[in-house]
């Protein structure tokens, strides 16, 4: 009896070793997670716990200035989470439950912020609603001071509500319409159904979106830098500690303070919300959702949805206009100077470097995400849940923390000294001056770390929908694991792979907080350059960067959809056959 119990994990382990490809894949994934995710976080925490760090902890937690900064951070996070979730819910509800004109077009405008380069939204809002804003001063004649919490809440909500929108829209569509029908059948009116069925069923989705937006907001660096004014938050203070004061320990201490709420929220999300989810996706909706037909409610909702769409168009229109005019609102002469600056001038290097590095990171991140998803969903081994958890840390942890961790780990070669063989370099110096590849290695690694979690989640979602016996059938017919993954699994999760790739590329092109400390004179990154232009008030150049960046992402999406495909090949005939 006891023999058998002890024999079990060994048998499973033997099974993994027996398949060399699976085994090597697992080893590579584990090495990646340890080197690129866990060790930077660990080193940062260790740095904060040194004697000097502990003193700083003491000082910060007792100083009124820092207490205000911490309170600001949490306040901003909560406001953005509440606003963004409410907005996402409202817009999703309109899409799913109300029949109004231009639904499809409105939907597309809500997706636009996914490819928003940092600073773009904030800068456009400044131009429109700031002290000399085209709308605030130009139309209403107010000198409105938008810097601070109000402006920050606006731009952060605009930048991140899409996450809540997509999340809640998916859940609303998955709700079985029979529930609505049953409630109607029992005599409930539309408002009562909304209150007693729709909202309670979506609570996990609402809570999940809220937490996600909270983490995104407190981790954001670009918007507070532009929009914060005197309203300081932890991420900007961390930035100043490194860039202004060169004090890594202080940055590490502040990062740990920022890490605590982020990780807390991540844990709640993972272990509480995912368990209380009541929405069951059966894949076979039994009817169409009942529509809201009350004319007043309908047109009010339509007005709200349209307003958000137009506002987003206004923001992005401003970005475009700013890129093509000399100085928007002051000298509106059309010009291509800003584009010349980016494409042929100072910015061309950053444009090429960023695109190249993102293009390297994208396939690696996409494939890695699918492989980890495959291991997590399909294979049984010890530490499976830990593998998923550690991978997700790549995005759960604020980008600034990853960046500082990289500085701490990779600013010197990592070596071990062995007897006889002498000193062996395990990992060469990756960041700072004289790093290999001019620091590009670390940047690519960060791109990957920040993109893999999304690819993993979409891979897990897709794989859970595929009957495992389809893969078993392939193996039973003589194919090995790698052949099965290549011929069966990968084609069937192609849509998830595609969205993982698109996300990876867009994220890599637009990320700022994680790589801002890692750019070197030899490797320039567009987002960092945008920050320089914004700080120096050259908005035209910044907008041109943003337009080009958006253009590059759109072209990449087209290339990826041609190269990878967005379908499995199974659904084409479903339409034709049905």
């Amino acid at each position, binding site marked *: 009896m006891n*023999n*058998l119990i002890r024999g*079990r994990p060994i*048998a499973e382990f033997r099974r993994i070793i027996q398949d060399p490809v699976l085994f090597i894949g697992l080893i590579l994934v584990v090495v990646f997670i340890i080197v690129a995710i866990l060790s930077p976080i660990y080193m940062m925490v260790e740095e904060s716990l040194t004697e000097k760090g502990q003193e700083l902890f003491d000082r910060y937690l007792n100083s009124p200035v820092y207490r205000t900064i911490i309170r600001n951070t949490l306040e901003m996070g909560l406001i953005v989470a509440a606003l963004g979730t409410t907005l996402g819910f409202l817009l999703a509800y309109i899409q799913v439950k109300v029949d109004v004109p231009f639904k499809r077009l409105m939907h597309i405008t809500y997706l636009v912020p996914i490819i928003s380069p940092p600073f773009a939204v904030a800068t456009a809002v400044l131009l429109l609603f700031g002290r000399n804003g085209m709308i605030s001063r130009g139309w209403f004649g107010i000198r409105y001071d938008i810097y601070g919490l109000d402006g920050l809440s606006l731009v952060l909500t605009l930048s991140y509500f899409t996450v809540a929108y997509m999340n809640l829209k998916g859940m609303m569509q998955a709700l079985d319409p029979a529930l609505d029908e049953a409630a109607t059948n029992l005599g409930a009116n539309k408002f009562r159904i909304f209150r007693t069925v729709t909202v309670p069923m979506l609570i996990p989705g609402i809570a999940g979106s809220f937490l996600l937006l909270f983490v995104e907001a407190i981790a954001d660096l670009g918007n507070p830098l532009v929009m914060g004014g005197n309203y300081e938050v932890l991420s900007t203070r961390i930035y100043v500690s490194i860039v202004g004061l060169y004090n890594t320990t202080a940055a590490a201490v502040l990062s740990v303070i920022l890490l605590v709420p982020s990780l807390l929220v991540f844990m709640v999300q993972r272990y509480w919300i995912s368990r209380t989810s009541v929405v069951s996706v059966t894949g076979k909706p039994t009817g169409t959702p009942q529509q809201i037909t009350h004319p007043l409610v309908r047109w009010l909702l339509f007005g709200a949805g349209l307003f958000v769409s137009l506002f987003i168009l206004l923001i992005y229109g401003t970005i475009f206009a700013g890129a093509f005019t000399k100085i928007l609102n002051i000298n509106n002469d059309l010009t291509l100077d800003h584009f010349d600056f980016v494409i042929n001038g100072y910015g061309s290097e950053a444009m090429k470097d960023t695109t190249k590095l993102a293009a390297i990171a994208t396939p690696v991140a996409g494939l890695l995400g699918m492989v980890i998803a495959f291991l997590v969903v399909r294979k049984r081994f010890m530490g499976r849940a830990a593998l998923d958890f550690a991978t997700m840390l790549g995005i759960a942890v604020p980008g600034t923390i990853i960046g500082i961790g990289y500085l701490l780990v990779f600013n010197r070669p990592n070596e071990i000294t062995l007897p006889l063989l002498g000193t062996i370099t395990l990992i060469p110096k990756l960041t700072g001056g004289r790093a290999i590849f001019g620091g590009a290695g670390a940047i690519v690694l960060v791109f990957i770390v920040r993109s893999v979690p999304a690819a993993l989640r979409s891979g897990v979602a897709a794989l859970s929908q595929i009957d495992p016996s*389809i893969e078993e059938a392939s193996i039973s017919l*003589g194919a090995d694991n790698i052949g099965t993954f290549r011929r069966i699994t990968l084609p069937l999760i192609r849509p998830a792979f595609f969205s993982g790739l698109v996300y990876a590329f867009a994220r890599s092109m637009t990320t700022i907080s994680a790589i801002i400390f890692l750019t070197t004179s030899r490797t320039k990154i567009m987002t960092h350059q945008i920050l320089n232009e914004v700080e120096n008030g050259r908005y035209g150049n910044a907008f041109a960067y943003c337009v080009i960046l958006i253009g590059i992402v759109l072209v990449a999406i087209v290339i990826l959809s041609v190269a990878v495909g967005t379908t499995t090949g199974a659904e084409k005939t479903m339409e034709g056959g049905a």
Partner: protein
Amino acid sequence: MANDQVGSLILDNISKIFPQRDGQGEVRAVDDVSLAIYEGEFLTLLGPSGCGKTTTLRLISGFEMPSAGRILLDGKDISHRPPNKRDMAMVFQSYALFPHMTVFNNIAYGLRVQHVSRSEIKARVEKVLDLMSLPTLGERRPNELSGGQQQRVALARSLVVEPRVLLFDEPLSNLDAKLRVQMRSEIRNIQRRLNITSVYVTHDQVEAMALSDRVVVMNEGKIAQLGAPEEIYRHPQSRFVADFIGRANFLPVTVDSVTGERADITLLGQNMSSALTFDASAGNRLTAVLRPEALLLKNDPDLKQATVKQAMYLGASSEYIVDVDGQELIVVESDPSAEQIFREGQSVGISFVPETVHLLTQ
């Protein structure tokens, strides 16, 4: 178990232990099972859900590794050989067709893995499409086929690689009743024709009886009984098997006397003797198994009287639940002619065919 024939596929004291879902304790899904499957035989693993039949099949296929024991194929230990190296092909309950491939490519899949030449693939796939009467469907996708056609493609896909052993995991349970009967006889015909050693898992006892050379009835991870279908039906070794295979009435009896291998008993007012498959002596309390069709109802005041509690007319037969001395019995009358139809509440004489009585210890 008969030892005169050597099994080509042997399970030697196989156990499979899963950890329980809450992490506390464990489940013995398969508990020390030994079994020899003969060359060309059609063997069915039959039992209620959770009895370990599917796990046993997955151990044979290699999708699970045994916690203890060995699996031998043609004398070679394959216990830890990965499933793709076992020369077995499995037909799945969900068909598990590759949705992104045409029917032709689905069937050709196993041959391509083996790097069979293009021309041979074409010839072999076409041959098996013919065999399964699917000749014109090669370019269709699985989701354009009916359930029955999908199951045929799944079977064709497994047959075309000419596996050493064919495995079936409840392949017919997703089909409607009529199609199931039709596919059942097709599977039987093809298996006979090709003479492929087959292991078949089902919870449907009729399916098991119709298809199999031998049936293994499983319960709680163990083999409850192994034998030919008629053997298992006529001489179940336990109350569980008697109840699971077909339907059964259980009547308590007391042994009056024992002569040789036979016991004299009194059943429903009749004196009779029945064969003993175990030791018993006068005064022992035993259980008599009576199949519903072995019980006879007749308007005859000389017989033991029963009260009809429920009557169901089914066309080809009639089913009754009758009360005899406070015990309810199921009776199936296969000839419901006019004078043989009884009404609820009516009193009727009951008797039985003595040769069909089977005794159990409990």
